[in-house]
């Protein structure tokens, strides 16, 4: 019985769990951006996993979100770190599968999203077009906007 429970719980914990899949790389990134602390599960919508980050001194309550967005022939996985007032502090592409569009992992290009409070990002307008990433770059912009809007709605409800 115990074994069955264990197997089922393993399936539940690992199924589609982006956080679990990229734990090592993600934790390293979180420490680099926010310092030490822990993640507390918030919610999961459309395969996007929302977490609160609780810093060791308990002051910080940033958001860490894991998401997948469509590339040209396959989805890619990424994580995004936002301050409590929903300003983007970091985006990291965790896995890029397709042959096209991997250029979105460029740190300098991703920096265009950072520290812009209250912005709805627009590809080509506020975010520069990217050679070779004609599909994945606008797809990432759209997905980031979606995440911000979910979090904004949540903040309003409080």
């Amino acid at each position, binding site marked *: *019985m115990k074994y069955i429970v264990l197997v089922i719980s393993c399936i539940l914990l690992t199924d589609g769990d982006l956080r679990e899949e990229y734990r090592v790389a993600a934790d390293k990134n979180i420490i680099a951006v926010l310092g030490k602390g822990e993640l507390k599960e918030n919610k999961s919508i459309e395969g996007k996993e929302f977490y609160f980050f609780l810093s060791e001194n308990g002051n910080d309550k940033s958001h860490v979100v894991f998401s997948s967005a469509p590339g040209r022939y*396959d989805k890619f996985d990424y994580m995004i770190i936002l301050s409590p007032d929903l300003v983007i502090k970091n985006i990291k*592409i965790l896995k890029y599968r397709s042959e096209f569009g*991997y250029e979105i*992992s*460029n740190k300098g290009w991703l920096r265009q999203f950072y520290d812009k409070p209250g912005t709805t990002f627009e590809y080509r*307008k506020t975010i520069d*077009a990217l*050679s*070779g990433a004609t599909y994945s770059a606008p797809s990432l912009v759209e997905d980031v906007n979606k995440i911000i809007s979910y979090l904004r709605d949540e903040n309003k409800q409080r």
Partner: protein
Amino acid sequence: MKKTTLFSAIILITAFSRLFAQYDNEPVNLSSSILNKSEDKLVFGGYGQVDFYKPFDDGRRMNSTLDVTRLILSMGYNFSSKTSFFSEIEFEHVRELFIEQAFVNHSFVDAFNFRAGLMLVPMGIINEYHEPTTFNGVNRPSVDNLIVPTTWREIGIGLTGRFLEQGLKYQVYLFNGFSGHDGTKGLITGERFLRDARQRGARAIMSAPDLSFKLDFFGISGLKLGLSGYFGQTESALLRNVEKTNDLAVAKADSSVVGLTMAGLDARYNIGGLSLRGELILASLSNTGAYNGLTGNNAGSQVYGFYGEIAYNLIRNSDSGYGLTPFFRYENYNTHYKVVQSVTKLDKYEINEFVFGIGCRLAEGAALKTDIQIAKPSDGSSVRKTFNAGVALWF
């Protein structure tokens, strides 16, 4: 013990609630379950261009041409998260059918993938990224048509990988080579260089594979740099059943083979509405003295091509989603940069080309293009002027 039981019960309840939750959704029929499955496994796409070409000359009347230049259907299948297949089936000029890519990729880790099948030779920009919405102008740059014989694809095996943090990508392949001789005539010429020598994976002949590599750097925002190399020998149908003791036949077969070395540098840069790109390709053929002597052809021994292009999207700040991008490209290429003594060097093979036009993006992946192409051969012979217009698609 009680705690364990309680814990087990909670997990079981969670498990069943999740399992049953599936049935709370709308009823699942067969087609929607296949569609859901295909979303994960089977991927379709395509690209194409339909074009109008109007040559113009002050002293002559000339016909225009209307052509479905190409229509490609691409299909991929993900066998697992690590193993995938990708293919492109191409119709050129409506009637000609080709397979442009058909290969399997197995990813051990991001930095180490194995692939095998019919693949694109990574050389310059356009051979790998040849979808019409990714370049300016109706036609692909001439350097990427004549010097790099786009779409250059052969059967091979290789390794490729990406280091996303460092912004590096590498590709190394063993490919089958060009066919320099089809048994009756030589296929490499001064005028068309290697274009007619592509085997395209169709009952291709081979004596030994060639080496191909490309390194790409994308670690600086908006910039992409590429360095490509290709080293090998052409194949020859004259090598069929040649007795090793038959000196004459061996010498003839050897004369039908040339060595090919090609190197390429390419750069692309985007900032704001501005985009710049450039490419330089150098190629060297060995044994062209014997080859031209045997075939009567006039293949050059050194060949080069380069171009530089500037484009600016005028309405990037509008909310319409449209793009309006005028561009200018200068190309210079020469298939007779150097020739062996027995060949007469023809200046008409050095061409200066000017292309200027405008592209109108209707949506991401759909564009209307129009341009004027002026090609000036260096021998002073008549300048070729063409007005081009076309529809470009990629989805």
